């Protein structure tokens, strides 16, 4: 085992990117993710990498598009308002089927909002965000270790499916420090990038584009993208369960809130309540099947989110009509982060003792 390091989540993500072989970063400063560009601006020059602090989020996502079109591993990072600006480029990348990693250490809104931990951008992240009806894989780490591991995974997914991939965190997982074991990267079989522009060199012309004007071309393209999303749903769902086997109430939360929820669930167990935790790690593809199974056993689901109710819609779609779904939300803002004790109270309120 490698030595345990003590680093911030944001730094862990940047380290994961380096380990994944990413050498191109394009970004624009915004709180609370600036540790990522700060780290990479320091490390990339030593690795012959390219770091550009761009004039805007719009420019940085398009620089990513250009570098990615050349077949190199590249990334950007930002926080919610900046991600809004990047949506145009993300849509173009999804349309042109370009890999790339986007780290979103999200903050609260709408508008300028605040810098506190928030899950208000669940919809924006998993439902497309930009125009044209696309999806991108969205990974929601809940620890410093996962900021590292899932960043590496994001680069693999991006190359496997030729798609932008988002790592969705917040100031809790971004700013907190924990032990990090920089595990070596598991080797995955990745396809050749036979589509990347390189200068013809006497061979066939290559074009990276999202414009399809021929009869039926765009429809076929959309169905092909759809098939790709279905394949992701089949193969790439990740989730985690704790104490769900005999649970009479299934608590569901993602990202940083799942950490707080886990402790609350432990408190409930200590109090004799049969409560379990289901935590989606991929928000797209959403782990529908695993959730449906766990929820079917419990018969009752309580969804916790740092917003007024977004993932709860995907939970309802996943579990079907036979399962009772309730919601508890803490919209973002200074001092809004619930404590495990508060969530325990919420759990108690929603828990109904199963009849013996």
């Amino acid at each position, binding site marked *: 085992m490698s030595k345990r390091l*003590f680093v911030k989540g944001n730094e862990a993500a940047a380290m994961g990117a380096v380990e994944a072989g990413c050498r191109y970063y394009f970004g624009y400063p915004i709180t609370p993710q600036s540790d990522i560009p700060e780290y990479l601006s320091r490390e990339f020059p030593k690795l012959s990498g390219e770091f550009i602090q761009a004039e805007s989020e719009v420019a940085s996502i398009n620089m990513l598009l250009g570098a990615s079109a050349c077949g190199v591993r590249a990334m950007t990072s930002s926080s919610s308002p900046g991600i809004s600006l990047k949506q145009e480029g993300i849509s173009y990348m999804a349309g042109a089927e370009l890999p790339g990693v986007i780290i979103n250490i999200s903050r609260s809104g709408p508008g300028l909002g605040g810098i506190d931990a928030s899950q208000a951008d669940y919809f924006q992240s998993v439902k497309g965000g930009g125009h044209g009806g696309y999806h991108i894989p969205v990974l929601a780490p809940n620890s410093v270790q996962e900021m590292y591991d899932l960043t590496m995974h994001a680069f693999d997914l991006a190359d496997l499916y030729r798609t932008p991939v988002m790592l969705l965190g917040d100031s809790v997982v971004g700013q*907190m*420090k924990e*032990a990090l074991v920089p595990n070596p990267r598991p080797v995955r079989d990745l396809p050749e990038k036979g589509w990347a522009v390189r200068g013809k060199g006497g061979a066939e012309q290559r074009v990276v584009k999202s414009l399809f004007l021929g009869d039926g071309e765009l429809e076929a393209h959309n169905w092909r993208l759809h098939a790709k999303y279905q394949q992701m749903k089949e193969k790439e769902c990740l989730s985690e369960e704790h104490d769900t086997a005999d649970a009479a109430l299934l608590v569901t939360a993602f990202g940083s809130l799942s*950490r*707080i929820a886990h*402790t609350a669930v432990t408190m409930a167990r200590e109090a004799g309540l049969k409560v379990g935790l289901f935590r989606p790690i991929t928000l797209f593809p959403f782990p529908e099947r695993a959730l449906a199974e766990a929820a079917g056993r419990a018969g009752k689901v309580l969804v916790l989110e740092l917003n007024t109710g977004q993932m709860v819609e995907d939970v309802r779609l996943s579990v079907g009509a036979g399962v009772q779904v309730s919601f508890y939300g803490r919209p973002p803002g200074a001092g809004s*982060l619930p*404590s*495990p004790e508060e969530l325990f109270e919420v759990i108690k309120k929603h828990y109904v003792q199963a009849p013996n």
Partner: protein
Amino acid sequence: MRYDVVIAGFGGQGVLLAGNLLSYAALEEGKNVSYYPSYGVEKRGGSATCTIVIADGAVGSPVVGHPSMLVVLNQASLDRFGASVRTGGVCIINSSLVDVATLDRKDVKIVPVPMNEIALGLGDPRMVNMVALGAYVALSGAVEFASLAGALKEALPERNHRFIPANVKAIEAGAEIALGKKA
């Protein structure tokens, strides 16, 4: 075992460094740690708070609503967090700057430590955070003192390593006061 503590003060008092140091020490001992900072927009003068959880097993929530121990370095932090300490918990208060009487709790142990006076007595007013840390470690037993000394090397940039002996002295001074040996 599981230890949790909230350390709070204003920016510039070294609250985050104290939290970092405690975390490094726990990590050195092979424990699991989460260190969760929150601070105001200002670098100095704003509020600075960190929550540290140390556990043999999984840390769980990095956010703690009712800490078993609270260390406050200024009045605003006591006003904000004083009520949150768990019943039976401990509240270590910098009595140099904080009116201890403002904490109306009979269900927690209150330990006033004149941190600024002690630090001044040692010749460096910036050591307030180390005095606080020493008091906390003495009362909680969360980490060994030896680990703290080792952790100073990790937590401090190399150019400040010459201050390590003075820091260790401040930690010891805080511990002694907290344990009542010199009270």
